[in-house]
């Protein structure tokens, strides 16, 4: 494994430690400035949506609709209808593998 990937692991560990420690150490009992809190509250939807489309609708540097697009859409329908994570992810895998097997 390359030194770069070890650096990635170390970097992720450091930022995760720092973020998790920041609240308990520095800001104990105080609130975040509301504007800052507002940005953090909607960071997850922005990032998750970007991660989903860059994986399900793209292949490297080009846009691409494939078997995985259908699988991820199926998972979305399961979650939308109140299903939990495991059945949704399982269905995504089955649909994706199935479509690829059919070729």
């Amino acid at each position, binding site marked *: *494994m390359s030194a770069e*990937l070890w650096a*990635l*692991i170390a970097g*992720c*560990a450091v*930022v*995760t430690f720092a973020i*998790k*420690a*920041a*609240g*308990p*150490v520095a*800001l*104990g009992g*105080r*609130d*975040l400035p509301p*504007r800052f*809190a*507002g*940005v*953090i*509250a*909607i*960071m*997850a*939807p*922005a*990032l*998750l*949506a*970007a*991660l*989903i*489309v*860059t*994986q399900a*609708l*793209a292949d490297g540097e080009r*846009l691409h609709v494939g078997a*995985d697009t259908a*699988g*991820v859409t199926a*998972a979305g329908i399961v*979650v939308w209808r109140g299903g*939990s*994570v*495991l059945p*949704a*992810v399982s269905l*995504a*895998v*089955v*649909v*994706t*593998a199935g479509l*690829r*097997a059919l070729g």
Partner: protein
Amino acid sequence: MAGGVLALSFGVLAREAGFSALGALVMSAIVFAGSAQFAAISIIAAGGGIGAAIGAAALMNSRFLPMGIALAPSLSGSALRRAAQGQSVVDASWALANQGEGRFDRHFLFGASAVQYVTWLGGTAAGAFGGSALGDPRTLGLDAIFPAFFVSLLLPELRDARSRGVALAGALIALALVPVAPAGVPVLAASAAALVGLKRQHAQRTAA
């Protein structure tokens, strides 16, 4: 259960992204933040650089900031001790330990997170060391696991019009940049959509 399966897929897909089995296990052991780990290796697997990958992991973890702040009054001891206790914050156990009105059962939090930690490491080890016995991850459809997992995290976040707008904007920014920007950059750039949160609104949600 779901955590174990996700950890297993992390182990398998980390190997695909160029990690050694030991590397995947070390990452789960010292990072212990599923969505951040998934985000980072997604970017590496797509050919992105480590700067973009760490940046995406940090942004993905930014939700732990307000969660840690909410937890802070329920912790005790020196700053170092509180920093260590803060490491136990993971989504599910934080939510379960929340007793309302700003109080948290910290011992429940530590216990619940310890169980998840063991599951997370065990699943990663199984995937990283045993995954190659499964065959080609693409044939098996395993590459659909991360985006499907992200969908299951995203949909419950879309309760209000603002979140839906931000998610849509993030998706469009990322898609527009995919053909022209290096891998990883589209995801980082999409976080700019969250800047709309600078605008005040009446009901603030506390944690993402």
